[in-house]
């Protein structure tokens, strides 16, 4: 009730608008209006399974938990961009909760022990002020009740922004050795869910997963707000 009162007061001073379409948000919607959320290109279980094996043919990551496809007019894409590049740090937790709400059953089924957000390099962390993956992971954790740890892995070398550059192999080479497991005790014998904002080629996740598995992690899963799904992904990267 208290937070609702505060939100109403806040709306009086400065009404909230949908990040995607600019419509006024009603009292109990956050960040994205229900219409925009409805029109998302959500993925089915089959889509996800196909995408997982497409991205990780080596089985380094067992399964991807991503509610929607990465397309250009997606409202979630807009939300992620705001989170990453427009200082919209409050959206992180919301997006994490959204992942959990959409894929709750399959996440619970996987019996995951620990959520680990993909870390940022320290210089990027200072530049942005926060790790967006960590914020998403918090939301995911709060909704599913699974423990979270940011102390398992660390990013050791700085990669340049790779939102739209390079082929999958190039990216993977670029990412190799980027992560180092700091707390092996936490990783050993456990089912770990790696969380990132977007999975484009899977290079980052694969690099992190390989480091974790090398230190004895039982199984590695991946979660993200958006994933470049196999069909759209083929169109974009197989030329």
């Amino acid at each position, binding site marked *: 009730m208290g937070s609702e*009162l505060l939100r*109403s*007061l*806040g*709306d*009086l*001073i*400065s*009404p*909230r*608008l949908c*990040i995607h*379409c*600019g419509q*006024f948000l*009603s*009292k109990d919607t956050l*960040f994205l209006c229900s219409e925009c959320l409805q029109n998302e290109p959500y993925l089915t279980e089959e889509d996800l399974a196909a995408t997982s094996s497409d991205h990780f043919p080596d089985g380094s990551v067992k399964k991807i938990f991503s509610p929607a496809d990465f397309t250009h007019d997606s409202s979630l894409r807009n939300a992620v961009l*705001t989170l990453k590049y*427009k*200082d*919209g*740090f*409050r*959206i992180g937790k919301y997006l994490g909760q959204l992942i959990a709400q959409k894929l709750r059953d399959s996440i619970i089924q996987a019996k995951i022990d620990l959520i680990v957000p993909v870390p940022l390099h320290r210089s990027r*962390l*200072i*530049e*942005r*002020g*926060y*790790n967006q993956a960590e914020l998403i992971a918090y939301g995911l954790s709060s909704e599913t009740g699974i423990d979270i740890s940011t102390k398992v892995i660390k990013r050791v070398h700085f990669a340049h922004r790779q939102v739209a550059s390079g082929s999958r192999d190039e990216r993977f080479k670029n990412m190799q050795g980027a992560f180092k497991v700091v707390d092996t005790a936490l990783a050993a014998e456990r089912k770990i869910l790696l969380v990132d904002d977007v999975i484009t080629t899977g290079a980052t996740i694969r690099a992190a997963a390989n480091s974790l598995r090398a230190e004895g992690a039982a199984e590695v899963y991946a979660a993200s707000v958006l994933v470049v799904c196999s069909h759209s992904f083929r169109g974009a990267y197989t030329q």
Partner: protein
Amino acid sequence: MKHLRFNDLLRFPALIAAPGLMVGILVNDYGYFPLWFSLPVSVTALLLILIFKLKDQNRLIPLLALLFGFASGAATISVSNASFQSNPLGKLKQSDADITAKISEIRVMTYEKISFTGEVSLIRYDSTAVDTMGKKRTKRHFTVTKKFTEPPTLLFQIKNPDTALYKSFKQQLLPGREISLQGRYANPLNRRNPGGFDYAEYLKRERISAIVYVYPDSTYNISGQPDLIAGSIYSFRQSIGDKIDQLHDKYTAPILKGLIIADRSTIDPEIMQNYIDTGIAHILAVSGFNVAVIYLITLLLFQRLKPYSRGAELFARILILFLFLILTQFQVTVVRAVVMFSVYSLLKYSGRETTGWNTLSITIILILLVNPQDLFSTSFQLSVAAVVGLFLAENIKSEVFRVWRGYFGEKSKKLLVSKPFFWVAEMVLVTLFVQLIMLPFLVVYFGRVTLLSIPANIIAVPLSSFMLVNGILTLFLSLISNFLASLSAAVSGLANSIIDYTIGFLRHTNWGTIEIYDSTAFEAFAFYALIALSLILISAANSFKKKSLIVLATAVCILLSHIMLQTPLLKPEENYIITVDVDQGDCYILKTASGEVWLIDAGVLGPTFDTGEAIIIPLLKRFGIEKIQHAFVSHYDLDHAGGMISLMKKGLIKQLNLPPPDPADTKEVALFSILAKYGKHKIYKTGDLFSANGLSLKVFNQTPETGAKSNSRSGVFMVNFATHSVLFTGDLDRKGEKALMETESNLRSEILKVSHHGSSTGTSRALLEEVKPAFALISAGVGNRYRHPSQKVLQRLEEANTETFRTDLEGCIILQLDEGSIKKVNWR
């Protein structure tokens, strides 16, 4: 952020409440709505808004927001106005007085002027009463002592203090201490000349009840402890100012003091005028621009804090902004910018991406609720108008650039679609829009708008933001190494001289400048209405061509309405004699029904003030006078001949008539050669007669005798026009008067221009016997150091049954000379 449509605006209560608040303040400044009415209305409206919002019922909120804005504006202005004492000494307008006051704020501390405000606890002044005993009326002078329980704030001014006084005041004057001194207490006049600056209004908005012109020879006593907070802030400001002075050259230091601590008092008036005339005074006004630079510095400074605590980072950032606010003594432009940045950051922190318009509205509401008087402050108005212009430019920019790209992108003219080109184009567009929205204010306050501001801004804005950052850096460097600091100071100096050179050059080209001195409030209102209408039409129009047509039509309408709304102050078919208020100096304009305009003397040229440029030229424009046929200089003192130089330079005078300079007096010879350099001139002598179209002027008292004082040799003019006669006696002293009366037999005149600002050196009883004036004109500065006009002279005039008009009491005096009668024109 998406562009908002008109309907969307209704969803932002602040966007509606802010204009409502401003209207409420404007309307209730006249006190229509009492507090017992406005306050409950405002509180009820606010409560209703809250209730409706909690129930998610949004339909009535815009209306309630408007009501809340209006009522709270009305309430806050009436509370603020009630606490102000407009006439602390009752009906008394001016008097010499002994005053004890607690110093509140030191405003100017230079060799030319010291000025500070103080809360007056005790004032002892002279008053007069008229006793009537039968038919006999006698004036009785007595001293009144008044103590205040609710002390009014007075402004104290000392012009040209001597070095000893300056040094001791600079050391001892601190906020919170008590001072007692003597000076001339004066209720401020609203305008001293037609079209002039409304000083009384300005002081009222600053909560200042009256002015005390401190006599430079006053004895004074400063005692007591300084106020802990205000005193230390002042001392801190002083020490920063001194440090800046010490590190930089004498041209750069005053500008940097303006940029960093908002202390503009030491900037050379000529340079200040360069900034104003080229439309970049906003840089020196410590505006959003400076705060934006500080804001960017804080962003860089606290970035490392972010991963640990965003709350702490936000707090640290806002704290720095508020420290800057304290350092600049809460100047309203800085308040505007700091509150706006804070509101923006807080909203952003709470996860609300908001529009600039909404942020601006919230800022306006916050500021005006605390101090509604700010609405009347020039700086606040210009500052808000500038932000509105900026936002409009931002909204329109993308569309203009898109059309531009569409047109030139095809024609492979790389330069016209390159990045640097768009950077410059953006600056041009922003400057244009800011100027457009500020236009009515610029016209009212500065009498001019100029396109020069476009090149001036493009060059000066980056350079002065560099100067601001580098200036702060230099201050920190000086803590480590004086050598490094002086290197860095030299770089600032270079930047400053580039700005100086550029704007000095631009100003003298005078390109793209329109001067308007006769605007009205109604015109300003019409202007904004037209702009608003055309903006609505533009948003409705669907092609670029239609939009351009609407802009063009708006411009034509504005020009036409300006021409049609002009109101002449002087009727062309009447005769006038105008005593211009040039402070301690002389300047008279004679205008006949036939359109002939003559000028006698032109006021002061001092180190910081040129009457010709600052008062007479704008006044002539206000009167619609383009050319002066004959100008006369009575003698070569700077308070009579000084202002003539800039009038000659501007080519406003057809023929300048000068007295023969004394070859033994080098100053006179020098001034003569300067004046003679700029145009047609003639040396007059006794007996010369000038006449044209019903106006004639005869010269007396020009004997080629040398060695006498310049005042004794003052040219005396007998002017005849419209059946009236006026005697101008310059600065004539007793000796000169005697000589005059010996040589001239008939000196009878209806109007006498009293010699030497009413000094007791002239205007003897004998002269008054000869002239027998019905009216007397005295031009003297309020609270001038010579205490002109002298009580003796005033008494003699009264005994001679002469009605006296004084510029120190009533500002500019316009007398209309009709056939057989003379009447005073009320121009206020």
